């Protein structure tokens, strides 16, 4: 079977769930090799990658790879593509993952497919386009297929791989060091699951009314072990930080369950959540367009409905 490179997404040495999903997917199509860019690939991380099927783990343990915007990661992958001739390269379809994929495609003169929600034999990718209105199956026809796969496209399943480590010496070229990251500013995060990866997302919009009131949304989220999201109206008003914005210019989420409270359902918001498996809506306006995509909707005041729902969930636990 042929080798498939999977770029590992990690934060502070922790592997993100989407990487385990990509390994699971890669196993159905070949032999996955994990590629770790940057420091922090400890024993626990390596064990986890092996547990989910990584046969090899390429480790480029250097600050240089992560201290510049995107380019060094693309260089690292391009080198591995040249050295190992993999059958495909998979990355997470996050805003940064897509940028890595784009540069890698140019470097290796290969086609790229973004926002795949599934991947099958011959690396044929499923895409859901035009706000979920059209389903497309597409594939790369030149070079090494580079596919950016959305988080939550498949369930991660463990199946041990050899997990053999191979160190990769890297020294990013001068061109790759042109945009230097001089500071990383972490805005509040909390203990909740990461927005794009969460199985359940609870989002609040303009209807929530204030930053303090977001506590109602957070309580519901916590009762379900969910991530919190927000509409642009809520992030623009600074009720919730921007990295929690769901939509066209925020995060694209595709959880098992999406609960929208006080959100009207503008096309730009829907673009970021329309592929959610189940959608619940709470809105006082029965004409709000978000009801069109709701599996279950309550026409009512969120200040009544949401706390009652939270209480009910706690009761039934």
């Amino acid at each position: 079977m042929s080798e498939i490179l999977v770029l590992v997404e990690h934060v502070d040495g922790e592997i993100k769930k989407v990487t385990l999903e990509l390994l699971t997917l890669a196993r159905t199509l070949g032999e996955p090799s994990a590629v770790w860019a940057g420091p922090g690939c400890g024993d626990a991380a390596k064990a986890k990658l092996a547990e989910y099927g990584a046969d090899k783990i390429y480790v480029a343990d250097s600050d240089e790879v992560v201290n510049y915007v995107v380019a060094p990661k693309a260089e690292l992958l391009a080198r591995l593509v040249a050295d190992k001739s993999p059958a495909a390269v998979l990355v997470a379809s996050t805003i940064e993952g897509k940028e890595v994929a784009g540069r890698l495609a140019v470097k290796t003169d290969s086609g790229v497919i973004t926002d795949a929600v599934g991947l099958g034999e011959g690396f044929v990718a499923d895409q859901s386009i035009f706000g979920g209105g059209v389903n497309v199956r597409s594939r790369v026809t030149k070079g090494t297929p580079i596919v950016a796969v959305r988080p939550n496209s498949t369930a991660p399943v463990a199946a041990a791989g050899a997990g053999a480590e191979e160190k990769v010496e890297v020294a990013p070229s001068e061109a790759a060091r042109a945009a230097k990251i001089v500071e990383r500013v972490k805005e509040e995060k909390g203990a909740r699951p990461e927005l794009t990866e969460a199985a359940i997302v609870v989002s609040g919009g303009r209807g929530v009314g204030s930053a303090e009131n977001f506590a109602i949304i957070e309580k519901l989220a916590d009762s379900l072990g969910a991530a919190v999201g927000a509409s642009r109206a809520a992030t623009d008003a600074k009720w919730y930080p921007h990295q929690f914005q769901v939509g066209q210019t925020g995060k694209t989420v595709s959880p098992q369950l999406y609960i929208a409270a006080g959100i009207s359902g503008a096309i730009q918001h829907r673009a970021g959540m329309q592929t959610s498996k189940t959608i619940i809506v709470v809105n006082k306006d029965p004409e709000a367009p978000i009801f069109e995509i709701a599996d279950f909707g309550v026409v009512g005041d969120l200040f009544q409905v949401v706390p009652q729902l939270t209480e009910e969930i706690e009761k039934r636990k």
Partner: protein
Amino acid sequence: MNIVVCVKQVPDTATERKLRPDDKTLDRDAVDGVVNELDEYAVEEALRLKEAHGGEVTVLTMGPAKATETIRKALAMGADKAVHLSDDALHGSDALSTSYAMAQALKKIGFDLVILGSESTDARTGVLAAMLAERLGAPQLTLARKVEVNGSAIAIERITDYGYDKVEATLPAVVSVVEKINEPRYPSFKGIMAAKKKPVEALGIADASVDASAVGLAAAYSEVAEFAAAPPRAAGTIVKDEGDGGVKAADFLASKKFI
């Protein structure tokens, strides 16, 4: 400062967008074209930088003849001139060949700064700025929520999963913007009138030294194998809250085994 803003014409997101059954590309004739939303923010940022530092703002659009409408909109906002890269040979270009053709055009125009939106509303690949940076060998300053230029130094705040990164580089550079960066102005009546007289240079692929065999549908690096309208979502259950809306929602969650 010589600023080039990349402005894409996209179908109005409020209309139903379709793929053409014949060659499986986006049916751009069937729908009204508008300026890609984020590109208005890119134009606005270019205008603000010009106002602060002097220079000139050029709009670059690659697209069919019809795209002149949206070029005029960008000019009406205040851009000085435009280059319209248009050629039948470009129809059906994927991200690879689009970035190649646009990089060639940019080399011809010359630039200190290229500004793009971070994503289009039609294809949404979000790769173009990164690809241009790669092709032009210029620093990639993408996903910016803030841009500051000081002489030849440029700094941005790049949005990330955890907040933002402060990133520094030297001009010339490629920037892409997110909508947090500014509030785009509306074209004034004066601006709209002035736009009619502003120069729009038509560029064919030969003028931009674009190799015809490297663009268009035939040269694409990927193909749409098949497509179909998504099955409509089954109509949901909508209830009116009569004091028990939360309980009913919990019942629904229980029926779906979420609780």
